[in-house]
């Protein structure tokens, strides 16, 4: 298992380098950062001096090498738009994104799995049909549209929940949390639903189809024949065997929840990394974009690794096979 982990880590470094190279190539087409950093009537000499200072006149390969060397030391430079170190900026935005993503993922799991089990077991009940209809909405409507619908329903019309922002936050050192204040919790509800809805429906449908599959297998029939209680059959025997694909999907989806929080964060003006990234794209803030993409790539790699390791825990067959080799 150690060799496996080390091999995966080496692969991860390769992946990160490729991401860095691709994103760096793309940055050549996003526009001229200098235009976004100065007013329209700034003289050409001043613009040129700025380009020189930023090293934008160097060949791309030189810029890339400089970026990789510094990134290896966790130095991502200074944001063009905010003139602050990128690491600080992202660090301050990270808690907001992580809180939102984790709450969304939890929401998706805690609602998705029971709904999936229920619809799998009671295929023809009215409630199952309702769940399936809702899940259809979750799959087919784009995130920003769901977000705006929720805002107009719960903020503008009913005025129950705030339409944007994170509410009051409490600081613990460098971590700021909105989970400890009423306004913070209220502000979290709509974005978490918006972000988690797609994952929830995905998990629900996945669990449902796996359940339908498993319920038909011999060992379940055998368990029934042994006279085990329904509850024990459904949750101890059937559900457990549906979980391997669910873990894979959930793990990978957690990565995409964090990465695609961009849209939800924009709709709700949630002060996280996604919003920062979008502001950076608009302002051609290359250091922030580069650091963000690296971070997301890193998260995906780490999550993949954890998912692989979790298989060992959940699926005894893997352990047996490994042991026998």
């Amino acid at each position, binding site marked *: 298992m150690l060799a496996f982990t080390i091999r995966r880590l080496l692969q991860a470094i390769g992946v990160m380098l490729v991401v860095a190279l691709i994103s760096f190539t793309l940055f050549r087409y996003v526009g001229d950062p200098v235009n976004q950093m100065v007013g329209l009537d700034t003289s050409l000499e001043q613009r040129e001096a700025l380009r020189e*200072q930023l090293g934008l006149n160097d060949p791309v390969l030189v810029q890339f090498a400089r970026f990789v060397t510094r990134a290896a030391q966790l130095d991502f430079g200074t944001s063009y738009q*905010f003139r602050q170190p990128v690491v600080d900026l992202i660090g301050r935005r990270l808690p907001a994104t992580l809180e939102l993503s984790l709450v969304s993922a939890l929401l998706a799991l805690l609602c998705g799995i029971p709904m999936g089990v229920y619809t799998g077991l009671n295929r023809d009940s009215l409630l199952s049909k309702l769940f399936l209809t809702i899940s259809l909405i979750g799959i087919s409507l784009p995130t920003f549209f769901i977000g705006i619908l929720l*805002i107009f329903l719960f903020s503008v019309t009913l005025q129950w929940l705030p339409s*944007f922002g994170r509410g009051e936050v409490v600081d613990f050192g460098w971590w700021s949390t909105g989970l400890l204040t009423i306004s913070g919790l209220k502000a979290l509800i709509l974005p978490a639903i918006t972000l988690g809805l797609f994952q929830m429906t995905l998990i629900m449908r996945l669990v449902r189809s796996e359940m339908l599959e498993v319920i038909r297998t011999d060992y379940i029939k055998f368990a029934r024949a042994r006279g085990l209680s329904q509850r024990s059959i459904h949750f101890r025997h059937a559900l457990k065997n549906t979980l391997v694909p669910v873990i894979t999907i959930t793990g990978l989806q957690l990565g995409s929840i964090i990465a695609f929080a961009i849209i939800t964060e*924009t709709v709700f003006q949630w*002060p996280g990394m996604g919003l920062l990234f979008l502001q950076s794209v608009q*302002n051609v803030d290359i250091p922030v974009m580069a650091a963000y993409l690296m971070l997301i790539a890193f998260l995906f790699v780490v999550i993949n690794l954890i998912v692989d390791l979790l298989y060992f825990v959940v699926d005894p067959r893997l352990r047996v096979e490994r042991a026998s080799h």
Partner: protein
Amino acid sequence: MRIIGQLALAGAIASTTLTAASAETLKYAFQGTLNQLDPYTLNETFTLGSHGNVYEGLTRRAPDLTIEPALAERWEIIEPNRWRFYLRKGVKFHNGNDFNADDVVFSAGRVRSEGSDLTSRIDPDVKVEKIDDFTVDFVLPEPNPILHYSWDTWFIMDKEWTEANDAVKVTSASDTTPNYASLHANGTGPFTVVSHEAGVKTVYARYDDWWDTAIHNLDTVEFTPIASDATRIAALLSGDLDMVYPVPVQDIKRVESNEGTRALTGPELRTVFLGFDQRRDELLHSTVKGKNPFKDVRVRKAFYQALNLDAIRDKIMRGLSTPSALMISPFLFSRAGDFERLPYDPKAAKALLVEAGYPDGFGVSLDCPNDRYVNDEAICQTVAAFLARIGIQVDLNAQPKAQYFAKVLASGGYDTSFYLLGWTPASFDSSNVLADLHGCRNDKGTGGPFNLGGYCNPEVDALTARIFAENDPDTRDQLIVDAYRLTLDDVAYIPLHQQGLAWGVSNRVELQQRADNQFHFRWVVKK
């Protein structure tokens, strides 16, 4: 005396409880972010407008944009080349330091230093002399009647504070750490900065020792940038915010019809226009080879007369634009009324094209931003449709501003044949429009850096030079009129319109909307 003291104390207690009970907080949002607090880092309207609540210049502008005394009580031109400013006494910075002539001399140096984006506020050759603690002279190399026109956004900083915090050098983009002044503020204005997290939230508080009588009744102001139009409007409609801007034109009705909110609209100072490449011998992006059709004034005039600005105003801008005859807002030039647009006349336009030798028209590509001005891309599409009627096939190239500006400005080698741009003169004066947009330029942009198409008329340049040095207002206005006449006869540009401002305001709030789109808290009254 004791009784008075007690009364005062009781009053103080009463007033604290009163303010605690009715502590007025203004919450507002703008589409862009406030990136840093250093007043010299970015020459951009929203940034300067925000700083204007915290910092003050020697002058300031009233709601109708007239120049008022601020940190200078008055000023006079004692010799044609020497301006004397008498400073206001008893003004204190937020940290308690006194404001005096040293601060003005210091700020004049810093605003012109390396890394400042506002070096244009004072010419590098202007000498700033301290006469006494409250008198400062500006000695100019040549007369300049509009010396102080843009000084409402040249903010005076505290010399002692800036030096003590090692923030004399303006934070430039290559610095690895922001200096103290870009994260903190210490002005003389009506509000102090309580906290500032760039791109997330900025909180201001009332400054009790402000030298002027406060009209506003605010204790706290919270600013949040909200980039998404729908979210910004929803936050206003739901009552989470008291004021948002800009309101997209298609949402104005919604804000108006909602109970408890209203839309404040008015003309903005920026003029949106179309420009032509008149410099190259062959256009870069056109079907005409071997010559440049835009060198022919008849072609330019044909384009002009083919456009129906009333239709653009009614259909694209939903009534929220003012078709313009000049390249400057009528707000900024008292004799703008002397001018009228050429009439919309597609037949005449077609005839002009035939006369110029293009009976079948030609193709040309139009560069256009799609996130810079109100409905910019839609305007360009409409322009393309109108031009199609006289046989011009427009290939529309609409891009985000980051790519657009990189292509069409000097840094991109003026890579355009036909483009849409907007311009607000930084000095609020025609001289800037004539010099920057109409001055003859070379390939690098020297002469008229934002004259992207390279229009050139030496007579206009000569008049512009005289305008810069003429101190008599009437003579000067006449010179400006003469210069504009020449440029209009040349059809140097096609001025389109001044776009409208639209702010969404809660009915709980009274405020003043300024045509330069700056939002000042000092006029806000919350009920």
